[in-house]
C-alpha cells in the first residue's frame, strides 16, 4: 500500500505535498498505528473498554465494521462462559444459565484470563464466589464451586507412585512411630458447612437436589484420583484431622497421640492403623519415609 492511501482522509493533500520528507515521515508515523497500539485498542474493544479500535478496521464485503467487531466481542464472553460451564458443570446446572452467565461475566470482568490454557480460566472462581453478591443469597454455591474445582484438579494432577500395603509391611515395627506420609498430588481435603456433597451427588445422578441445609457440624471430604478418575469420599472428623496432620508432616506416632486425645485412647493406635490402611487401599498416598532423612523411602 502506498503512503498516500494511508494518509488519505487524515490529511489535506495539498499540505501533504508541501511537506518536507522529514515532516512526511513524522505525519506518517502519527497516522500509522504501531502493531502494539493496534493490539491494545483491539483488546480494549473486546473487553468492552471503548471503541477506539473501530478506526483501524474496514467494513466487510457485506457487514459493517461495528457488526464485525461485535463478532469478536460476543465470542469472547460466550467462549469463556462456555469454558467455565464445562469446568463447573453441576454448579452451572444448579444455578441455571441466566444466573451462572451473569455471575461468570462478573468473574471474567474481575479476572480476565491470564492463563495460556483455557483449562485454568476458572481457577479463581470459588474465591470470587466467596465475595460475590450471589453468595449472600446462596451460600452453598461457593462450596459447590470449590468441590468441582477439587475434582477437576484431581483429574489432571501430576502422576506419582501409589504407596501400597505390601510396601508398608516391610517397615520394621520400631520405625513405625517415626514415619511420615506424603499424599498423592491429586488428593485434597475440603470441609462443607452445608449439604453440598448431597446436592452435587443428586445433580450428578440427574435427580432433584435436596433443599440447602446448613449442617450442625462441617462435613469433611477427601478428594483424589483413583484409576484415572477423580473420586470423593466423606470421612469422619477423626480421619479428617488425621489426614490434615499427616499432610502437615506429623509422623505415625504423633497421629496416634492426636487420635488418643480425639477419642477413646486405648484403641487410638488401631484406629490410626485402620485409617492409614484405608488410605493405602484407596491409593491416596505416594510415599512414606523418615523425617530425619527426608528423602529416605521405606
Amino acid at each position: 500500500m502506498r503512503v498516500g492511501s494511508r494518509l488519505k482522509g487524515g490529511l489535506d493533500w495539498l499540505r501533504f505535498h508541501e511537506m518536507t520528507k522529514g515532516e512526511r515521515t513524522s505525519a506518517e508515523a502519527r497516522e500509522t498505528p504501531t502493531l502494539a497500539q493496534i493490539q491494545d485498542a483491539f483488546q480494549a474493544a473486546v473487553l468492552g473498554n471503548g471503541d477506539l479500535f473501530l478506526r483501524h478496521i474496514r467494513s466487510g464485503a457485506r457487514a459493517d465494521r461495528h457488526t464485525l467487531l461485535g463478532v469478536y466481542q460476543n465470542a469472547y464472553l460466550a467462549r469463556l462462559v462456555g469454558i467455565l460451564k464445562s469446568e463447573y458443570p453441576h454448579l452451572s446446572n444448579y444455578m441455571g444459565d441466566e444466573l451462572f452467565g451473569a455471575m461468570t461475566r462478573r468473574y471474567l470482568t474481575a479476572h480476565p484470563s491470564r492463563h495460556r490454557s483455557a483449562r485454568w480460566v476458572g481457577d479463581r472462581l470459588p474465591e470470587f464466589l466467596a465475595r460475590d453478591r450471589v453468595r449472600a443469597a446462596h451460600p452453598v454455591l461457593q462450596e459447590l464451586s470449590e468441590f468441582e474445582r477439587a475434582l477437576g484438579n484431581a483429574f489432571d494432577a501430576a502422576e506419582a507412585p501409589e504407596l501400597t500395603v505390601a510396601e508398608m509391611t516391610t517397615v520394621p515395627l520400631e520405625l513405625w512411630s517415626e514415619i511420615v506420609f506424603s499424599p498423592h498430588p491429586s488428593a485434597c481435603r475440603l470441609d462443607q458447612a452445608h449439604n453440598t456433597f448431597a446436592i452435587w451427588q443428586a445433580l450428578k445422578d440427574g435427580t432433584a437436589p435436596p433443599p440447602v441445609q446448613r449442617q450442625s457440624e462441617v462435613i469433611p471430604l477427601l478428594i483424589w484420583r483413583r484409576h484415572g478418575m477423580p473420586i470423593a469420599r466423606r470421612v469422619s472428623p477423626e480421619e479428617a484431622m488425621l489426614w490434615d496432620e499427616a499432610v502437615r508432616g506429623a509422623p505415625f506416632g504423633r497421629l496416634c497421640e492426636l487420635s488418643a486425645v480425639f477419642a477413646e485412647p486405648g484403641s487410638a493406635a488401631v484406629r490410626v492403623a485402620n485409617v492409614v490402611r484405608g488410605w493405602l487401599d484407596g491409593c491416596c498416598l505416594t510415599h512414606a519415609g523418615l523425617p530425619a532423612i527426608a528423602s529416605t523411602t521405606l
Partner: protein
Amino acid sequence: MNRCDAACAGDRPRYLGFGLGLRPQHYREILDGEPDVDWFEVITENYMVPGGQPLRMLERIRARYPIVMHGVSLSIASTAPLDRDYLRGLRVLAERFAPEFVSDHLCWTGVHGVNLHDLLPVPYTREALDHVSARVAEVQDVLGRPFALENVSSYVEYTHSEMTECEFLAELARRTGCWLVLDVNNVFVSAFNHGWDARTFFDTIPRDRVVQFHLAGHENAITHIIDTHDALVPDEVWDLYVHAVDRFGAVSTIIERDDDIPPLADMVAELSLARRIASERRPGLAPVS
C-alpha cells in the same frame, strides 16, 4: 544465511494421509477399535497438564498413530514477550510425544498478560512481518523441530494493512522457513467476510511450504460467516478443497471438529470424502506407509 537454508526448520514433514482432530469423546472408540484414520492432530494445550488421564490416553494413542501437536496459545504475533514457560512446556511435550511437527496459528491472543482465548488477526504490515518473523525464528530455535503456522478465520481487516494475508504468509514462510497449515474453511470464511477471492489465496501460497490442510464447517450469518468448526464440512469448502488438492497435491489432511462432536464413525465417514476427492484429483497420491 536465509533461514530457509537453515537446518532449524528441519526437513519437510512427511505426508501422513487423512486424519482427525483428536477429541476426548473419541478416546475409547479409538483405542477399542481400528478406525480408518491415518493420524491424529492433538490440541497441544489439552496435554499441557501435570498428569492424569489426558496424558495417559495420548500415550496409548501415540503408540498406535502418528500425531501433530497443534497449539492455540503461542500468540506468535503478539507484541507481548514470548512466553518462555509456555515454550519450554511445548518443547518438553514435543520431546515426550515426538509429533511429526508442531503447529500454531498466525494470530495473537492477547497483550499485557491477558489471554482472550481467541485467534485474533494480524495487520499485514511490514512491521508485523518483521516482528512475527523474528519470533518464529525464536520458536524454531527452541523447538528444534519442524514448525508450522495456520491461517485463521477473520472478521475484520485493518485499514493500514500493506499486503494481503496470503502475501504475508508466503513472505513469512520464505523468510523463516516455517511450514504452513492451510485451513480451507478459514480461507473460505475470511474470503466471504472480506470479499476477496479464495482461489487467489491458495494460488499465492508457495506450493512447497504447505504441509497440512484443515477441513471444517461454519455458520452463515448472511452478512458474514462465523467460523464455528461445529458442523459438517459444507459443499463450498469441499469445492475449495478440490482446488487446494489440485494446487498442492499430497498434503496431510484432517477434519477438525471443535464442538457438537459427533460419534467417531460419523467423522470417519466424512473423512472418507476427503480421501475420495484427493484420490480422484490426484490418482497417483502415494498411500501412507
